[in-house]
């Protein structure tokens, strides 16, 4: 009797308990699924970023513009850089931030992504050719110099280090020398002395210089001053999100020349 009763009582009790247990299992599964899906997505995004970081491009034609012509181009004000950004270069290549571009490529495998990347460039290049004079992007002279006039996907892959965000920060650091170079000039009597100085810079998130501080002196006052002057004349870009603290804390030290 008591067994039957307890059984009947137990049935509803157990079924409620079972319901909640199963419900929580479902939730748990959902949560784990969501978490792991996010993780997979993160890894995927990161990989795509890394691949973008490491895509090198081969030259397929002789450069048409002379180095002199390239030098006379003016630098436009912080315009998002087009596909020509991806070029064969010693330094980590600077790839424009194109979030949408990354998005739509997400589902594709690596090979087709590369293929698309290359097609995209050729199209853009073709469009560019028609109105070369006025539409030619001039922001990155050095890269153009190496770029030739047509680009295709390169075969060499050199993986970057660290995470995608790190890569973004590394790319930002890569833009700093280019900002300074136009103002970093020495007369021959200083250039011949093989001097070396380091300047520590403190910058706000928007790229404004707070101060430039001599970190390692070359021993030559004029050399040190010229290095600091060049930093003060340069205009830096906005620091990538999440790295503003590094700029404020003065974690960037500039080597003149190394």
């Amino acid at each position: 009797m008591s067994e039957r009763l307890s059984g009947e009582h137990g049935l509803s009790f157990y079924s409620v308990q079972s319901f909640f247990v199963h419900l929580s299992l479902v939730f748990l599964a959902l949560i784990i699924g969501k978490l792991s899906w996010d993780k997979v997505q993160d890894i995927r995004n990161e990989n795509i970023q890394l691949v973008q970081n490491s895509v090198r491009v081969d030259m397929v034609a002789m450069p048409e513009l002379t180095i002199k012509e390239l030098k006379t181009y003016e630098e436009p004000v912080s315009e998002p850089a087009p596909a020509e950004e991806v070029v064969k270069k010693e330094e980590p290549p600077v790839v424009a931030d194109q979030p949408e571009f990354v998005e739509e490529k997400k589902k594709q495998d690596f090979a087709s992504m590369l293929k698309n990347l290359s097609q995209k460039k050729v199209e853009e290049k073709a469009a560019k050719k028609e109105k070369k004079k006025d539409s030619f992007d001039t922001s990155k002279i050095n890269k153009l110099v190496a770029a030739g006039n047509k680009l295709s996907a390169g075969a060499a892959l050199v993986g970057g280090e660290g995470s995608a965000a790190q890569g973004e920060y590394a790319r930002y650091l890569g833009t700093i020398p280019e900002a300074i170079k136009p103002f970093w000039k020495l007369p021959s009597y200083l250039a011949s002395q093989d001097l070396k100085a380091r300047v520590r810079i403190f910058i706000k998130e928007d790229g404004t210089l707070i101060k430039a501080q001599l970190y390692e002196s070359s021993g030559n006052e004029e050399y040190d001053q010229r290095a600091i002057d060049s930093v003060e004349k340069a205009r830096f870009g906005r620091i990538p999100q999440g790295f503003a603290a590094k700029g404020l804390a003065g974690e960037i030290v500039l080597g003149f020349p190394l």
Partner: protein
Amino acid sequence: MKFLTLFILLMSSNLMAQNLTIVAVGEAGVEASLVAFHANYSSLTGADLKVAKDFVKILREDFAFYKGTFEVVNESKTPEIDSSPNYEKLKSAGITFAGNVTFRKDGVLYANVQLHDVNAGKVALLKDALVTESKLRPSAHETANALFKTVTGKDSVFESQITFVCDKGSRGDNIVKELYIMDFDGKNVKRLTNHGGVVMSPAISQNRKKILYSLIQQTRSKSRNNNLYVLDMDTGNSSLVSSRSGINSGAVFMPGDKSIALTLSHTGNAEIYEVSLASKDIIGTLTKHSAPDVDPSVNVDGSKMAFLSGRANKAEIYIMDLPGREKNTKRISYVGKFNATPRFSPDGKELAFSSWLDNRFDIFRIGSDGHNLVRLTKDFGSNEDPTYSNDGQFIAFASQRVLSRTEAVQNVYIMTRDGEMIGQITEGLGNCQSPRWTK
């Protein structure tokens, strides 16, 4: 021990906390330095005055040759500079180096040049030079080089020479090309050969004592082979080095000037060989490929040879590490319809070459790692045969202008390694080509 570990840990965490990233800005660009030369000609008359003025003119012109590195103050605007000038005044005029040239007659005329380092406020160099009619140019160039070296710490091009080929003396279809040599500034031109034939692709030894060249002799017989000769600059005599059947051409000196790299086609396929100048025998096979390999260029220390090869079914540039020969051969150029005459910079870090683009040749430059291809000439006629100056800052080349449908003129020009034109160097010698700068 534990303390030490703890200490090290703390230290490293401290360093970590600082987390400084060092970003290399790179080598600085060049800012032109203003230099001034003031001369005191008082007590000079007649021929002495003329030669003294020429001496100072050469100093000014030499420094002005380094356009972008130096700017020379006009004679009329040059302030008074004596043995103890007002440095502050010179500094405010933007002058960084000031020369004070005085002359003294002691049987022959001497120039005394005092170079003031304006920023340091002291004399940087004192130099005496013989100023005679016959020794004027070498003496002035030597002085200019000494001043240049004081300022920059490096040798200039002022004492270098360029050997080249001109067709002056050709009549109608009878083309005659002879070998010439001149100073870097186009002055002091001398003809070196008198073959009455066609001299081609010269090469000057590192000690400037010998010049190799190929020659097609004008003979009545039908065999017009392309043979290699060497000219002894001391005696002025030429002697045959190689007359193997086919090409004996594109020879360059190997370091030490004892042997040469030479393109030969006696086996049927053009390959580059090392030939001893003393024995005239082949002492090494540098290239070994079924495709033709021509036009060697060896860097100053002899570790690398650049050459042109048809192994990719078109003329492309390759670099060989000489000790490794074919095993260590790397293709450098991947573009261009037709690339020609790769020439190493003295330090071997880059190559200048000409390439066919838009129906003419133009000069390009590429790093010896295959990176950083840049174009140097454009809309400037057809440009071939680049050659680096001894200091690597300039490139001389042959430029051809079409005058009419039947007429064209070719001359030697010089530009900086960044394609900034310095000017035409040869004049009135007919068509001039194949410049080779002494290293």
